[in-house]
């Protein structure tokens, strides 16, 4: 059992300037939580405060309900995997993994057993006598994870653990980490700047920017119901299109029409009433939600076609001057430099006010049901005939 709570946590490296500006967060037992955000937003700082490597300037950090602000890093029951792996270069793989146990005074036989078990899980058995220098990047990474596993921590902390691996290995390790999460049934906090890693791995994503939490939620919740422009632009690839629009009309129940710069009108459906006609808003549309329609409101000429094989991205300049990216099928014969029209279904539109906050979309539930955590019996879907 390990739950983790942050209560108004703040960090100032220098007096008068806050790097972390008050964070409240609850992490459930066995949850896989990902902190994601652009470089320099304070992800590592937050993780290091949880680890105990940085002092907490203000606020409380609770592990299993106990305040641990002033508890030694090694006494918090956490293990950390560093971005650089931080292996001990002068020790063998076995000694690297067994170092914590050795310091804790665990007997040699017990230590060997635990190290061997971790090596088995990570397929490192034939490398136990090697030094880190004689390992590949992926193997070093696994040793770093192994060093965490042997301590049987309550919470695993990862700081961008995949950023030093090549693309192929990154995908493979991602899957492996998820398998480990299942197998170890441990709470994991994972830091990355890569939203794809966040989407694919997380039970819960925490989007950070400039030392504050922009939004917390499951991957699909963030994808479907981003709370603001920042989250909408950060989550999802290719990036969401943003177009300046003005409200043309609204029925007070969420149905309405907004006008593009060229005057073309787009029907929208929100979960709340639109503001008064004439109000400027930002319309957000995911490229994958646009489709070709000879009567569609988005009229423009393509200037670039990106063929990725499975899908095609067409970059358009609309008649009103805005840029728009449309994602279509890989075999779409679309060519640049011809006028095309596309449309979007009203309930796939996102609208953002001048303050950047999203208007509520239909179907938004504040807390969607969580997916079953590892070790728990899966919720069996009951057939509704």
């Amino acid at each position, binding site marked *: 059992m390990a739950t983790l709570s942050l209560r108004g946590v703040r960090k100032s490296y220098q007096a008068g300037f806050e790097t972390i500006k008050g964070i409240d967060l609850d992490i459930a037992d066995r949850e896989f939580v990902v902190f994601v955000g652009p470089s320099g937003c304070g992800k590592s700082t937050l993780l290091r405060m949880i680890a105990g*490597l940085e002092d907490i300037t203000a606020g409380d950090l609770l592990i299993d309900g106990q305040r641990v602000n002033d508890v030694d890093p090694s006494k918090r029951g956490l*293990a950390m995997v560093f971005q*650089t792996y*931080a*292996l*001990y270069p002068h020790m063998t793989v076995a000694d690297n993994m067994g*170092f914590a146990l050795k*310091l*804790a005074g665990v007997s040699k036989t017990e230590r060997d057993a635990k190290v061997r078990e971790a090596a088995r899980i990570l397929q490192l058995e034939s490398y136990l006598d090697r030094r880190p220098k004689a390992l590949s990047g992926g193997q070093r990474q696994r040793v770093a994870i192994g060093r965490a596993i042997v*301590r049987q921590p309550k919470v695993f902390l990862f700081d961008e653990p995949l950023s030093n691996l090549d693309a192929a290995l990154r995908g493979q390790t991602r899957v492996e980490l998820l398998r480990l999460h299942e197998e170890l049934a441990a709470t994991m906090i994972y830091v990355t700047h890569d939203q794809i890693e966040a989407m694919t791995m997380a039970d819960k994503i925490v989007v950070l920017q400039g030392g504050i939490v922009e939004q917390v939620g499951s991957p699909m919740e963030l994808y479907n119901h981003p709370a603001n422009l920042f989250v909408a632009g950060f989550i999802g690839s290719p990036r969401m299109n943003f177009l300046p629009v003005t409200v043309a009309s609204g029925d007070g129940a969420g149905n309405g029409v907004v006008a593009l710069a060229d005057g073309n009108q787009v029907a929208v459906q929100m979960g709340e009433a639109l503001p008064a006609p004439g109000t400027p808003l930002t319309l957000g549309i995911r490229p994958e939600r646009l489709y070709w329609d000879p009567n569609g409101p988005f009229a423009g000429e393509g200037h670039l076609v990106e063929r990725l094989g499975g899908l095609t991205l067409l970059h358009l300049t609309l008649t009103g001057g805005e840029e728009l990216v449309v994602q279509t099928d890989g075999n779409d014969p679309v060519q640049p430099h011809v006028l095309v029209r596309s449309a979007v279904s009203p309930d796939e539109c996102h609208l953002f006010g001048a303050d950047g906050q999203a208007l509520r979309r239909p179907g938004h539930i504040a807390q969607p049901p969580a997916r079953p955590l590892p070790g728990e019996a899966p919720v069996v879907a009951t057939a509704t005939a």
Partner: protein
Amino acid sequence: MRSSPLKTLLTTLLGWIVAFALFFPIFWMVLTSFKTELGAISTPPEVFFRPVITAYQEVQARSNYLHFALNSILISVGGTLVAMLLSIPAAYAMAFHPSHRTRSTLLWMLSTKMLPPVGVLVPIYLLFRTSHLLDSRIGLIGIYALMNLPIVVWMLFTFFREMPKDILEAGRMDGATTWNEVVHLLMPLTLPGMASTALLSLILCWNEAFWSLNLTSSSAAPLTTFIASFSSPEGLFFAKLSAASTLAVAPILVFGWISQRQLVRGLTFGAVK
């Protein structure tokens, strides 16, 4: 950039000239030590002669070389050990927990090396006299340790700062106390740097003459005092003086020769990056 053969030749030549100029006095000293007293002062100087070891025999007859050599070894090693023991914690603190005053503290420590030692001779002499440390090995070990402390701290600080902080943090997560961190991680990983620092300190202690001449007379006197005792007021005996000097520098020369790779590697560690 590729230099022309002529330029290479000239720089090589210049290098040899400088090296020869630096080496010549030592060479001449060794040569003179194998001459008779008469041969040593003959003009023009003799280059080809029949080597004799009378000078060495007389030096050994007049004073006990081994006694001085033992003092030199004990005092150099002792002074270096004390300096290292004091410097490792100091450099650790400054390298891994720096404050806004760390830079100036380091500079201030180094600035004490700019003071001429003779400036504090009288107070130190009086302190030694009252605490009965005159002509004692312990006293000289203390002085040598303090004398080298700024350089040793500075060098260790530079080496420690090269060490990735992550590794120490990983150690802390693994439950390492500060003591564990230093013994299991910092020392093994900065061993080359620490070795060259200790080597330099050893050499500086061995060659130190000012304090040993002023604070020792016989029982704790190291080899530098031994050399000085042969430049007697009743006239210089060059052959004997050379023999004594050769005996004094031989051990550290051999030692330096053996450890030169380590020394050069350590001293250029930060510079060549």
